[in-house]
């Protein structure tokens, strides 16, 4: 497929630049793996230290809401993949449609997450923000706080992703012939955010 991108210094050849851009994004995603790896390491350490408390706390989370969110995010990745393919086939209008779906699904995820946070807050499942009515086992509180920190970090990344997709869409609308590579790179980031959730969901919700 022809690389549709805007050639920039120091590259003289579009294929060359595309290879470098792809590698750059993969290296960046590698750093994000290490970022989330840190939080997962904390979760693992706590799982080993307080197994029953972790299981007890995890079972208080809303498994189904989390599951629906997983489906929403996976579908958004599908939409993103369609957008990338469309741009490579020089079909910007299809791409814009797919990107709108991506954004909509991403926002749906954030909306459901906000709903879930509200529910958690009301149920006293956010000890860091609101001490619960009856005293919780400290280890359970730890799990719930970790859940909040991890999903919040993920949500921040997702929000950034939504921003990127909107920015990408505006560029496609203005100058579609040069955005195939940008779309592909944005797609890689989006898929990564999805994959992070695919790890977080079982670790946080399915430990029972």
């Amino acid at each position, binding site marked *: 497929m022809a690389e549709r991108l805007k*050639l920039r210094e120091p590259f003289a050849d579009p294929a060359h630049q595309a290879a470098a851009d792809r590698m750059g994004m993969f290296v960046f995603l590698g750093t994000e793996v290490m970022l989330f790896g840190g939080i997962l390491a904390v979760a693992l350490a706590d799982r080993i230290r307080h197994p029953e408390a972790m299981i007890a706390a995890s079972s208080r989370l809303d498994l189904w809401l989390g599951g629906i969110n997983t489906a929403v995010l996976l579908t958004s990745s599908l939409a993103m993949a369609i957008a990338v393919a469309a741009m490579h086939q020089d079909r910007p209008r299809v791409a814009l449609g797919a990107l709108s779906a991506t954004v909509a699904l991403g926002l749906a995820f954030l909306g459901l997450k906000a709903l879930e946070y509200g529910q958690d807050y009301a149920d006293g499942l956010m000890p860091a923000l609101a001490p619960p009515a009856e005293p919780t086992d400290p280890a359970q509180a730890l799990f719930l706080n970790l859940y909040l920190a991890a999903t919040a970090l993920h949500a921040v990344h997702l929000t950034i992703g939504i921003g990127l997709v909107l920015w990408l869409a505006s560029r496609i609308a203005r100058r579609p012939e040069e955005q195939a590579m940008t779309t592909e790179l944005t797609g890689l980031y989006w898929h990564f955010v999805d994959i992070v959730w695919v790890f977080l969901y079982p670790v946080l919700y399915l430990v029972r």
Partner: protein
Amino acid sequence: MTDIQAGLPASGIVPETAEERVSYLRAGHSLRSWLLTTDHKRIAILYLIAITAFFFIGGAAAALIRLDLLTPQGDLLSNEGYNRAFTIHGVIMVWFFLIPSIPTTFGNFLIPLMIGARDLAFPRLNLLSWYIYVLGGLVTIYVLVTGGVDTGWTFYTPLSSMFANGHVVAAAAAVFIVGFSSILTGLNFIVTVHTLRAPGMGWGRLPLFVWSHYATSLVLVLATPVLAVTLALMAAERLFGIGIFDPALGGDPLLYQHLFWFYSHPAVYIMILPAMGVVSELVAAAAHKPVFGYWFVAFSSLAIAVIGFLVWGHHMFVAGQSMYASAVFSFLSIAVAVPSAIKVYNWTATLYKGHISLEPPFLFAMSFIGLFVIGGLTGLMLALLAVDVHVHDTTFVIAHFHYIMVGGTVSAFFGALHYWWPKFTGRTYSRIWGRLSAIFIFLGFNLTFFPQFLLGYLGMPRRYHVYDPAFQVLHVLSTAGASLLGVAYVLPFAYLLYSLRHGAPAGPNPWPATGLEWTVPSPPPKHNFDRIPVVTEAPYAYPVERRGDDG
């Protein structure tokens, strides 16, 4: 020498002005042309200015520390004041000087030149990384002027998360921010080395400077994010009490130490690997001879980077970690010294049957080798479990890491400055002053830090400013050394700046040395090469005999 004539034409995307073709320094004189540049050479200069500023701020903190330690009662600074002084000294020197120092100045400037490229792979990302650095720096200055922070640069919990007063969250934020600068720099280097090498520049022809920066970049991109998440969790603990590190809430203070050192140990390799790369270049140029054992030196850089990720527990031998884990970390810490030893022996062997020059850069290289060896050996001593139990958290450790980071990295930084200054600026400087400053730095440094080995073994704890009066003589010697060292560091500042106006113009290759950076004018034109070179020779292709040697 490389065959430049047959090379591919330059990309010609951006038409060059006459000024740009002459020198990158002349390609625009406005502030805007500097602050919005994407030229890796100008970005290197921007970094050079910024890190020099922080070097002096961190150095001022060090001066306060050493002055306070002149007397055993700690009467210059209050207890709180002393704690803030050593904390800001550590935070600034580690994250705003040492980690960026060589990669962002010399790495940025030289890597494209050394591999035959016109710029890094992502020039705008390069500029962004400088702005992120500046932002982190501004937050640090905010912390400094609003009273500082008193946790030590290590931010151990629960002290930092629950007890410390001072701007802990702001300091953590500053470090978090500047971490992104590191990550982007490392990312840029990795992709550049993979994709922008000139035709014929295979991995086996890369200068060792590039190999060591490549290894450094692997550490930068993989380790720094762990620091980011660790500091974020520590700040969240402080702000919201989430309980990850607080035992009363089910957490574990040791978990913080594991996470922190998982980054911070590889971080010290971020600080030393580029310096080793510089020294490889300097030794080859000093001896006018290829570096002995090229592949062993190249792979040693990678080995240090990899094994460096596996030794973090040696900071925790007395922290309450299992003794079996400690034994494993001790063993690996000894193993990580092996590639460094290989480099030192190889550099020495390079000098054998060479044509050795004692110009200023090469004196700095010798200084590096001497001081790094002492630092490295004392590191091995610290890796020995029963010894570390005694000297952990004493000034012995302080002396060890200053030998490596200051005796090592800073010497290499000055060596690089003196070696590539003609290339950066097109000027030469006074060789006499250059040699003098190398000698003063070597002597001042030893006088400052050798007594701290003795003090540490005697039992002087680190981060103490009240001490047994019997220790005073050693402290006075150390402060005297620090004064000499301070003067010695200001000297190059003076004569190098002087050379900008009054130094004789430098030719393209004053030393002379091999390497593509020496085939372009001094200073280089904005787009580096008129034609992308085609590389046909091995690296360090020095002839055996030189004209001018009798016999």
